[in-house]
C-alpha cells in the first residue's frame, strides 16, 4: 500500500516542480541585454550631424541602447573615419551606423565589420558595397532632381549657373550631381559653366563663390549641393551685396542657412530629414542585432523649402527639430 503513496507523492511532486519551473521561466524572460551601438558620422560638429545625433539619441532612449556618437573633425578625414570603424570592430560593438565620407574607401573596413558579425547600417551616404544591412538616407538622385526643378522654378529656363558640390567621390555628391544634371538636361537654355568642389569647407565655398561671380558676372544662379557649399555661397553672395540678384539654390537647413533664407540670400533649400536618418539608423541596427527583417533601402525623403512655405506647420517640424 505504501508503494502507492510513494508513486502518488512522486507524481504530485513532479507536477509541482514542473509548474514552479514554468513560473520561474516566465520571470526570467523579462531581463534584457543592453546593446551598444556606435554611430559614426562624417563630422561631429556640424548642425546637420547634430540633428542626426538627436534622432539617434531619441532611438537610444526609446530602445534602451548604449549609444556612442562619433565622427572625425572634418569630412575630408577619411582615414580618421576608417580608424573609428576599426575601433568599433575592436571593442566589438553590437552594431555600427555609418555615414560614409567616401563611397569607395570605407568599403573594406565596413565589410570587415560585417564579416566579423557586426551589422552595419549606412546612413546619409552609401558605400560601394551590397553587403551592408541597410541604407537609410535621402534618395540623392531625387534630391538632385529637386534642386534642378527648384532652379527652373526660381530662375527660369534660360540661365547661366555654377554648381558648388562638396567632396568629389562621395556617393551623395555624385548622385545629387547626376540627378541635377538629368533635370537640367531637359532645359537647353540652362548653361552650367562650372562644377566645383568645396571639400565640405565653408570658407572654401565662400571663396569659390566669389571667384565664380568675379569670373562670370553674367551668372544668374549658384546651385549648392550640401550645407557647407550653401552656407559658403550665401556668405559670399551676401558679402558681395548681390543677395537676390544671384539666386542660391541650396541644400539642408542649418540655422545659418535658414537665416539666409529668411534674409532672401538663399531662395530655395532642399531639406533632408537628418533626424529620421539618425533615429531609423539606430532602430534598424537594433532590429538587425535581433535578427529582425529590415528594409534594404529606406528613403527618408527631401522637401523643397522657400521663404513662402518655410513656416507652414509641416515644414516648421522639418526645419526646426523639436528638442526635448
Amino acid at each position: 500500500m505504501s508503494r502507492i503513496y510513494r508513486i502518488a507523492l512522486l507524481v504530485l511532486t513532479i507536477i509541482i516542480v514542473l509548474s514552479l519551473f514554468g513560473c520561474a521561466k516566465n520571470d526570467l524572460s523579462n531581463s534584457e541585454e543592453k546593446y551598444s551601438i556606435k554611430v559614426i558620422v562624417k563630422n561631429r560638429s556640424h548642425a546637420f550631424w547634430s540633428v542626426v545625433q538627436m534622432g539617434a539619441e531619441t532611438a537610444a532612449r526609446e530602445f534602451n541602447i548604449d549609444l556612442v556618437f562619433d565622427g572625425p573633425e572634418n569630412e575630408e578625414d577619411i582615414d580618421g573615419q576608417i580608424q573609428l570603424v576599426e575601433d568599433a570592430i575592436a571593442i566589438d560593438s553590437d552594431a555600427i551606423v555609418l555615414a560614409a565620407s567616401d563611397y569607395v574607401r570605407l568599403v573594406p573596413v565596413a565589410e570587415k565589420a560585417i564579416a566579423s558579425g557586426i551589422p552595419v547600417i549606412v546612413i546619409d551616404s552609401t558605400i560601394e558595397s551590397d553587403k551592408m544591412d541597410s541604407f537609410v538616407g535621402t534618395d540623392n538622385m531625387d534630391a538632385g532632381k529637386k534642386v534642378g526643378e527648384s532652379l527652373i522654378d526660381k530662375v527660369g529656363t534660360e540661365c547661366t549657373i555654377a554648381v558648388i558640390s562638396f567632396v568629389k567621390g562621395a556617393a551623395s555628391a555624385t548622385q545629387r550631381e547626376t540627378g541635377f544634371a538629368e533635370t537640367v538636361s531637359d532645359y537647353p537654355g540652362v548653361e552650367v559653366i562650372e562644377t566645383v568642389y568645396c571639400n565640405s569647407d565653408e570658407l572654401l565655398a565662400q571663396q569659390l563663390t566669389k571667384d565664380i561671380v568675379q569670373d562670370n558676372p553674367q551668372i544668374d544662379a549658384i546651385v549648392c549641393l550640401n550645407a557647407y557649399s550653401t552656407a559658403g555661397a550665401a556668405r559670399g553672395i551676401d558679402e558681395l551685396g548681390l543677395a537676390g540678384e544671384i539666386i542660391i539654390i541650396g541644400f539642408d537647413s542649418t540655422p545659418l542657412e535658414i537665416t539666409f533664407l529668411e534674409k532672401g540670400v538663399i531662395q530655395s533649400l532642399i531639406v533632408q530629414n537628418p533626424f529620421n536618418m539618425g533615429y531609423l539608423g539606430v532602430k534598424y541596427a537594433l532590429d538587425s542585432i535581433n535578427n529582425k527583417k529590415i528594409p534594404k533601402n529606406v528613403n527618408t525623403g527631401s522637401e523643397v523649402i522657400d521663404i513662402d512655405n518655410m513656416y507652414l506647420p509641416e515644414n516648421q517640424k522639418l526645419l526646426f527639430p523639436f528638442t526635448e
Partner: protein
Amino acid sequence: MKSKLKRILKKVPKAARRGFRINSIQSIITLSFSAVTMLAMTMVGIGLYSSFSDNAEVNAASSAQQIMEQATINLENYLEDMMEISDIIRKNMREVTPNSIQNLDNLLSLTLEMRKDIVTVAIYTGNGNVILTNPVYDTDYNYQIHEQEWFKQTISNPDMYLIQPPYVQRLFEGRRPWVVSMSSGLSVEYLGRTETWAAMVDLNFSLIEQLCNRVSLGKRGYIYIVDEYGNIIYHPQQQLLYSGLKQESISEVLEQEQGSFIEDFQGESRISTVKNIQFSNWKMVGISYVDELAENQWDLNNYIMYILIFGIVFVILASIFLSSKISKPIKRLEHQMNRVEQGDFDIENLEVKGEDEVKRLTKAFNLMISRIKQLMEQIVNEQEEKRKSEFKALQAQINPHFLYNTLDSIIWMNENQNHQGVSEMTAALAKFFRISISKGNEIIDVADEIEHVGNYLLIQKIRYKNKFDYSIDVQEQAYGYRTLKLILQPIVENAIYHGINKIQEKGEINIRAVVENDHLLFSVTDNGYGIKPERLKEIFKREPTNKRTSGVGLKNVHERIQLSYGSGFGVDIESIIEVGTTVNIRIPLIKLQKGENNE
C-alpha cells in the same frame, strides 16, 4: 540497476491494480472526495479568475482616469497661472505711460527670472508694433506680427485667451524656439484714446512635460496633449510624431468625449483615457497598454493556478490518508477472513482499534472466530470419543464370541484326550489375548501383529479341524516397522467365515507383509467363495449393525486406518467369485524405535 528498475516497473501495475481497484472503499473515498473538492476548487478558481479579469480592464481604465485627474488639475492650474500673467498685464496696462510700461517690464523680468517655462512675454499695439518684449533680443523684422492669424483673432476677440498649438517663434533673429503661445487682448488708454492691444505669453514645454511625465501609467504608458483640431500640443516623442515616425490615433480621441476606450493600435491593444482641459481646447490623453495589464493578469492566473494545484495536491494526499485510515482495519479484517476462508483458524485475535464501526466489526469477527474454534474443537473431541467407543464396542463384539468358540474347542479336545491340542490351543489363546491387550497401546510392532494373527489362525485351524491351510510370509524389512494393532485378525476372520467356510475343498489363506515404496502393505489372500461385486461396492458404505455380517470387520479396519493416517491409506479388496479374495491393507511406514524391538 536495470533489473531493479524492471522489478519496480513490474510492481507498478500490480500495485496499481491492488491500490486503485475502483470498487475498494479506499479508492471510492479517495476518488469521490478528490473529485468533489477539485470540482469545488476549480469552480472557485474560475469564479475568482473571471471576477478579477472582468474587473481588470475596468479597474485599469478607472485607475488611469484617477491618475489623470490629478494631471488634469495640475495642467489646468498651470494654464490658470498663465492667464493670471495675462491678467496682471491687463491690470498694469490699463493706463499706458512710460512709467507703467517700465513697471510692468520690471515685474515681468522678475517673473521670468523665477519661471523657466516662460520663453517670452510680449505686448503689441493693435497695429502690431512692439511695446515691450521680455527678454529682449534683436527683433526679426521679417516677421510681420499684424499678418499673423493669432494676432488678428486676439485683437478682434480681446476678452478671449487664445492658446496656439506649438509653433516656431520667430520674434528674434537667430532664435527659433518651439513654443506654446497664449495671447489675450487688452483694452488700454493710450494718449487719450482707448485701444485694443495684444499680450502674448510664449511657453516652452518644460513644465508641461514635467506634468505629464510625473504621471505613471505602467512601464510603457504615457500622456500626451492634443487640441480640438488634432494638433499635438505635447507628446513625449513629439519629434517622432513630427517626423512621421510615430502616429497617434488622434481622430479617435477627437471623437471621444471624456472617458476611456480600448483600441487596437498598430497591433497592440491599449486603453486611451481622454480628459478635457478647462480654459483651453486641449484634451489630455493617457495611454496604457493592455498587455502590461495582461502581465498582471498572468501573475494573477499563476497565483490562482498555484493555489489550485496546491489545494488539489493537499486534498488528494489528505483523502488518500483518510481513506487508508478508514479502510486499513477493514483490509486487515479482510486479510484475516481470507485466511479463515482457506481453513486457517489458528489466527490470533485482531487488535480492536479504529473507528467505532470497525471496532464493533472486529470484535464481532473475533467473537465469531473464537466461537467457531470452540465449536470445531468440540466436534473433533466428540468425533474422537465416538470413534473410541465404537472401536471398543467392536473389540468387545469380537472377543466373547471368539472366546466362546475357542473355549468350546478346548473342551471338545479335552474330552477327546487331545492334551497336546489343548495345551497348544490354550497357549495360543493366551498369546492372542496378550497381544490384543498389549498394555492398551494402539500401535504395536509388525512382529506382534503377525504373531497375533498367527495365533488366531492356529486356533481357528484347530477349531475348523484343518479345513484350511495357511501360510505367513513376512519380508524381513517389514519387521523394522510398527503398525496399528488388530488390523489383520478381522480380515482373516472375514476370510474364514465368509470365504473358506463356504467352499467344499480345502482352504488356503496366505498372509504377506512387504514394504512398498512409502508404505507397508499387508495382504490377506484366500481361495474362498469371494465377494460379489455388488456387495463389494457396499462394504465400505454399510452402517454397522449388530448382526454380524460379512464386511463389518473390513469396514472397521478401513475406518480406523483412515482415521489414524488419513485418506491416502486403508483397505482395498480384489475379489473374484469362486476364485478367492485378496485384501490389501496399506499403512504408512512407522519406524520401529530401539528398545522396543524385543519386548
